[in-house]
């Protein structure tokens, strides 16, 4: 492929099978666009690679060992850290700083004059230029924003359904599908084995569920069962977890409150010990009192006993002395005196 008007050829035949470099300027892109040949133009063009970069590409393509670009973007120890300080004049706005940040640094400007804004502008010029046919080829629409086409019986498109109505009426699709199946079974195309009846069981069960009494029963029963399952396997476990968490929170709060009351507990324990000590003191006091009292009681009892003994001995001795000193004539005189007294008394007594 030679360039027109004596320019340098794009490809030399002696090089053989090589990767063609992307065009270096927009003039080449325009030339190729005029030829309506878009097979040699990569739609994300890089008219920015320098000769050095192209040489690196060629060497890397030929060799299985060399890396592109050499050394520059190898991972280095400590991390590939590049710190740049940019001098901007006073009064630079934030937008200007942001646009400046999108530019390449000074030492790479000649190597990679890649401008994102230019690329976007060129894409806009190409894709939304004057030749653009927006009527027949409108711009891209996100399919996620478009609703699904209407569907009958879960996989049959409504367009197919409605296209058959003018030819075979409203029941055309059903007659064709069901009757077609039966016809094929009768002809032997669909072989009738034991397995075929199972296909019809599903259809019969589906038709059975469409009957009104069955429908009414199912509309009551199925939500009931689904709600039971939901409660058992979804709502129940979640509620258990919530209750467990509430209980843990309450226990933690209780523990916190108990910790708040620990100083009081300390004082109460101290008071408890004091009470026990007091109790012990009182017991010992009582014990001491009782011991002393018992000893004193013993002394008192001893003294009393001694006094009583002395008294009784004295009384006995005195009476015995008196009785010993009683002579018979004294005794006679005593009796006589008693009799005389009795006589005098009997005279004064009134009977």
């Amino acid at each position, binding site marked *: 492929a030679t360039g027109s008007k004596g320019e340098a050829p794009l490809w030399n035949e002696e090089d053989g099978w090589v990767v063609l470099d992307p065009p270096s300027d927009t003039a080449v892109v325009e030339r190729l666009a005029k030829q309506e040949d878009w097979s040699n133009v990569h739609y994300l063009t890089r008219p920015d690679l320098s000769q050095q970069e192209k040489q690196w590409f060629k060497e890397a393509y030929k060799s299985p060992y060399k890396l592109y670009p050499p050394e520059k973007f190898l991972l280095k120890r400590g991390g590939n850290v590049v710190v740049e300080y940019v001098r901007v004049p006073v009064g630079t706005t934030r937008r200007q700083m942001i646009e400046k940040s999108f530019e390449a640094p000074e030492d790479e400007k000649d190597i990679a004059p890649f401008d994102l804004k230019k690329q976007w502008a060129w894409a806009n010029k190409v894709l*939304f230029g004057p030749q653009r046919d927006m009527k027949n080829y409108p711009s891209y629409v996100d399919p996620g924003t*478009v609703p699904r086409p209407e569907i009958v019986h879960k996989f049959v498109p409504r367009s197919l359904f409605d296209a058959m109505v003018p030819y075979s009426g409203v029941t055309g699709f059903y007659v064709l599908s069901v009757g077609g199946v039966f016809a094929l079974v009768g002809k032997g195309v669909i072989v009738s084995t034991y397995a075929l009846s199972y296909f019809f069981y599903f259809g019969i069960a589906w038709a059975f569920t469409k009957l009104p009494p069955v429908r009414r029963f199912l509309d009551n029963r199925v939500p009931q069962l689904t709600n039971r399952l939901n409660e058992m396997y979804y709502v129940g476990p979640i509620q258990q977890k919530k209750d467990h968490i509430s209980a843990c929170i309450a226990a933690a709060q209780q523990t916190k409150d108990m910790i708040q009351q620990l100083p009081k507990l300390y004082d109460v324990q101290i008071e408890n010990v004091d009470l026990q000590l007091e109790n012990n003191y009182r017991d010992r006091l009582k014990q001491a009192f009782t011991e002393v009292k018992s000893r004193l009681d013993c002394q008192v009892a001893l003294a009393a006993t001694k006094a009583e003994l002395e008294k009784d001995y004295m009384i006995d001795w005195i009476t015995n002395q008196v009785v010993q000193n009683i002579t018979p004539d004294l005794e006679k005189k005593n009796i006589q005196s008693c009799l005389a007294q009795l006589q005098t008394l009997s005279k004064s007594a009134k009977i």
Partner: protein
Amino acid sequence: MGNALNNTNLGGFPKEYNPRIHGAYQADRFYGTPDKPFSSLKVNEVFQWLNRRDMSLTGIARFYSRKLYSHQRRYHLSAGSKGVGFVHFALFFSFLGFIRAYKHDRHLDDGKYH
């Protein structure tokens, strides 16, 4: 032998595609000369229509790919699709399986009770 592949278009856009006219490339659109839709043909026009079509291997592959992408866009990637794309896919391959297994039980056609 590599020289024979120099002017081929393997893995590239169709020749008729021009981003200046058609915009960004969409795989489910046809970028050739507009022709009558198949459903509006009369029976005597069918062969002429087919002759105008690209019946090469790449043409057939492009047709198949276009149909896959359009079906995907309509039934699979749309909002509220709910598995209809998967069902169509399964039905299509079930039909191919039916075709493949057609000869499986032909020996039973001669039987009295089949």
